[in-house]
């Protein structure tokens, strides 16, 4: 039997980059096919081609043995291709049913008739175990539920091939488990599934076959049962990867950061952090685990002095820190901040690397005096840090925009860590980075820990939290569900806490 989908020698270039280089791939019905690769390996470009959003420069696509030229997503949908995008393509103020029928002909065109659609949605959700209320407003649903809506949206359009782009990135472990059950069900009903990920454990668990992409090329396609994590990692990165970080035991010292009964509002004026208390000590990493959007951003911004506290207290080195405290001044508040959004908050993209490296300190000696910049000093500083932090940039005058994500993050690390801070606030510092850059960030964090810094480390990646932290605080809807030690807790238990179950104690 011919495979459901066959991609032959697809090449796609964007100005300056070959995103896909003669990619060949086969996916059969009743198969879950994983597409594994680092960021920038070309996974998303490939599936955007399959969904009609990009046109390949050369190569052929065959669906059910027939060559097709996909010219729009409407066309791809008509041919039975469905896609669940990494960033959901749902319209928050509309209902589930409205989102699902959007763009389709109504039985009473042009009148909107949601009755039959709602019945079909209910039928589909029962058939595949995707419970969802058709009349619910999408913005009120949890991320996991929104993902189900996306899957139903594809099934409602009679998708035979379902493409999921990094579907687990935003889910709790339990939600991932449920998603995998749904995918197995889809497979048994005869669907073909393409599952994109860069997480090896998930690929090993769910896929039948796996194709590894690196730098736009297919490295290999393997049967999952006949390969292992180490082999896949080697193919993905191009070298051996150490899975274990070397974390020497260190005795924590006195507390550097004390947060007591902190309350913080989000941008919409709703409560984002409620009654949160914890300490971070010298030589200690306090990991903050939780699904994205449970108050992590607001917590870090409040401690960084970028967002007012609505209540409670923040003490740094024994002194009360208030909203707008000058984070770059004095000894009391020697705080480094590695913000979540490195492009918007961490860097000025159109400034040079050298300028970004003094972004905190440029108003004072040795970089300036009486309002005049000392360009030589700025330049020497840049050259020193570029070397020390292995920033891959030909020249300090290159704009930050031109750097890869990993190198952008190194610029921020260099600026923040070179001052030997007492407290480091690291918000998702490895998000979007490849394996090499992630390792670099994690090693630097452990170096700082050994040096004596107190580190508040926010991440949505459980593995990372478990390997780096001395203690783990789990956030759910702005509250701490408990603080636990990594050696004394299972991933399952952490998952339940991330989903809102109170466990453990305040250590």
């Amino acid at each position, binding site marked *: 039997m011919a495979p459901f989908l066959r991609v032959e020698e697809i090449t796609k270039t964007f100005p300056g980059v070959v995103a896909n280089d003669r990619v060949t791939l086969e996916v059969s019905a009743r198969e879950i096919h994983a597409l594994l690769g680092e960021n920038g390996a070309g996974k998303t470009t490939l599936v955007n081609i399959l969904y009609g959003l990009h046109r390949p420069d050369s190569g052929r696509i065959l669906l059910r043995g027939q060559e097709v030229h996909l010219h729009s997503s409407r066309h791809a949908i008509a041919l039975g291709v469905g896609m669940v995008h990494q960033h959901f*393509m*749902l319209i928050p103020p509309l209902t589930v049913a409205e989102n699902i029928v959007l763009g389709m002909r109504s039985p009473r065109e*042009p009148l*909107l008739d949601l009755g039959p659609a709602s019945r079909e949605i209910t039928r589909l959700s029962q058939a595949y175990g995707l419970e969802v209320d058709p009349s619910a407003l999408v913005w009120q649903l949890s991320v996991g539920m929104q993902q189900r809506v996306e899957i139903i949206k594809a099934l409602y359009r009679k998708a035979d091939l379902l493409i999921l782009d990094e579907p687990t990135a935003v889910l709790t472990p339990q939600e991932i488990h449920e998603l995998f059950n749904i995918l197995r069900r889809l497979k048994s009903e005869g669907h073909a599934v393409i599952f994109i990920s860069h997480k090896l454990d998930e690929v090993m668990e769910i896929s039948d076959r796996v194709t590894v992409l690196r730098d736009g090329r297919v490295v290999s396609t393997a049967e999952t049962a006949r390969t292992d994590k180490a082999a896949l990692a080697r193919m993905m990165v191009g070298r051996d990867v150490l899975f274990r970080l070397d974390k020497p035991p260190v005795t924590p010292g006195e507390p550097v950061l004390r947060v007591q009964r902190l309350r913080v509002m989000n941008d919409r004026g709703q409560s984002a952090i409620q009654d949160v208390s914890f300490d971070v000590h010298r030589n200690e990493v306090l990991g903050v685990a939780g699904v994205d959007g449970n108050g992590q951003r607001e917590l870090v911004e409040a401690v960084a002095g970028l967002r007012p506290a609505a209540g409670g207290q923040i003490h740094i080195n024994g002194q009360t820190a208030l909203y707008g405290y000058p984070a770059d001044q004095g000894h009391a508040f020697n705080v480094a901040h590695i913000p979540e959004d490195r492009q918007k908050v961490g860097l000025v993209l159109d400034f040079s690397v050298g300028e970004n490296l003094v972004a905190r300190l440029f108003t004072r000696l040795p970089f300036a005096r009486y309002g005049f910049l000392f360009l030589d000093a700025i330049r020497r500083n840049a050259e020193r840090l570029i070397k020390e932090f292995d920033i891959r940039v030909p020249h300090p005058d290159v704009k930050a925009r031109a750097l890869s994500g990993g190198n952008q993050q190194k610029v921020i690390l260099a600026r923040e860590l070179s001052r030997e801070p007492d407290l480091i606030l690291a918000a998702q510092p490895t998000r979007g980075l490849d394996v090499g850059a992630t390792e670099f960030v994690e090693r630097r964090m452990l170096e700082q820990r050994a040096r004596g810094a107190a580190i508040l480390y926010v991440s949505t990646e459980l593995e990372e939290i478990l390997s780096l932290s001395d203690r783990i605080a789990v956030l759910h809807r702005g509250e701490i569900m408990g603080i636990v030690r990594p050696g004394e807790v299972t991933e399952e238990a952490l998952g339940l806490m991330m989903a809102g179950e109170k466990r453990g104690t305040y250590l």
Partner: protein
Amino acid sequence: MLETLLQLLWSSDLIYATLRLTTPLLFAALGGLMCERAGVLNIGLEGLMLGGALTAYLVALKTGSPWLGLLAGALAGLVTALLFAVVAVTFRANQIVSAVGLNILMLGLTGVALRAVVGLSSGQNAAPTIPIWNIPGLGDLPGLGPVLFRHLPLVYLVFILVGVVAFIFYRTTWGLAIRAVGEHPRAAETVGINVIQVRYLTLLWSGFMAGVGGALLSVGYLNTFQEGMTAGRGFIAFSAIIFGRWTPLGTMLASLLFGFADALQLRIQAFGAPIPYQFLVMLPYVVTLLALFGAGRSQSPAASGAPYAPGEA
């Protein structure tokens, strides 16, 4: 004093004038509402109205038919909006800046065109105007009959259109597509909606409607065109959309409020109140300003004002 005030407020003239003055605003606002729900901010309503007003006047003057004038005014608005769409949708120019440019262009263009065609003394060239429609039977009812049922036909039409727009928004697939495009154009595109087409069509509609609103001023209520005669009504219509929280009913109520403020100041002037008339003329604008303060940070369509580039992931 109080008695005078009550007399002023309850006078049937005031209600009549409110409906009359609301109508041009509401035409422009209902047009703008449609394209704003599709994510295009249209501050150019003022210029579109002005173009509609002049064109309607000139065509009515030359053909002798106010109805042809009205149609020409609407089409002038549509064509001008097409120009705006090319700049702001296809070439993705900043919507505010290009709309401001459009307003300035139309202010200059209408002034020049007026002089070129009829010379400086337009006052002597009275155009025919759209007649009042005294609805048989209803217009002669005692009390409210003359107040509610002796208007231009367009006054009735615009209130019917409020319902039509609401129906389109919430009961048709077109409306769903428009709302989706204004909230999350990329999501709309992934399900096969042509974002650019939706924005073009809604902008053309807004031009057509603003053109009608402008034409009403020149061949409905007056019989002439004066430079800058819209006097900020396009901006007030724009504000009515925001104060009305981007809903048809809200936009109608906001337009009625602004129309009422205008009617009231005229009424107070006519009463000979000892207030310099310049202050009275300010009233509708002051009410608009206060309304926008009161509106706070209301929920605008999420993609409002953001140009959209199709197919760029």
